[in-house]
């Protein structure tokens, strides 16, 4: 598929459809939800300017762009320290409104090593296969599978008090 520039409507549709999952993915790397939103906005505003040709599948490009931008943002020291008020904003919402469990899940995910958190977020909330996550992250499939397994075990352990697992 040749590189092409997305229209503003396409960009906004992608944001509406995949914004939540991309935010969760950005938050795998940055310190809080506000910083994750900043990363997301930088990526999408760049596309809205209309001077970025997107190679291949736009969604795959978005995940790579969010990953790179988040890592750059962290490397450059942007929001290296969580702001007290904003860091309390939970990343997740439960469909039945269980706020405490949503906060607990966010906390449990934050405690995972980054490379495991990244895989579990892609697998669970982006709906990617392990092959797709391995391809995006640039690791062998077996590595992705083992990271995923470790992550699930740790999450299950940490969420036990809330009745998970």
């Amino acid at each position, binding site marked *: 598929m040749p590189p092409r520039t997305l229209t503003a409507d396409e960009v906004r549709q992608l944001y509406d459809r995949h914004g*939540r999952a991309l*935010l969760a993915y950005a938050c795998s790397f940055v310190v809080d939800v506000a910083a994750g939103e900043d990363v997301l*906005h930088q990526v999408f505003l760049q596309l809205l300017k209309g001077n970025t040709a997107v190679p291949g599948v736009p969604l795959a490009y978005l995940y790579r762009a969010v990953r790179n931008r988040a890592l750059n943002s962290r490397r450059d020291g942007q929001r290296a320290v969580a702001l007290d008020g904003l860091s309390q904003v939970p990343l*997740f919402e439960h469909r039945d409104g269980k706020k405490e469990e949503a906060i607990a*899940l966010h906390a449990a995910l934050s405690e995972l090593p980054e490379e495991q958190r990244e895989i579990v977020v892609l697998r669970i909330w982006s709906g990617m296969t392990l092959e797709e996550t391995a391809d995006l992250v640039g690791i062998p499939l077996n590595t992705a599978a083992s990271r995923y397994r470790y992550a699930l075990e740790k999450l299950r352990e940490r969420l036990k008090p809330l009745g998970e697992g």
Partner: protein
Amino acid sequence: MSAMELSDARFESRLREFQPRRPRALPDARQVGAARRRLAAAAVVALSLAASAWFAVTPRPTPPPEATAKESASAESVSVRLTSFSLTHLAITSPEKLDGALNDASRRVLPDFRARDSALRVLAKE
């Protein structure tokens, strides 16, 4: 499906009951550009106002009008007389007048030691 896989599948399904929150609305790229331009324009205006206010408020020493007139006249005459073109012209056409012109100019530029209230005379009296 093994018991572990079944357990994993159930746990995954529990995790999917949660969904990431919706990120805040995407700002309009044009609005962002316009906002930046407005901000830059506002900064320029504010800077100009601040500079004007500073110039208006800051007191400046004002030399006496006589001195100002004398200085400007002197500087003007010296600048007229001491241009390299005029000196070269003078040196070629009438070299005998060159020394006089230079002496005259130096009296205007350098302190006058022969004046009644020159610094040297005052110091000598002390």
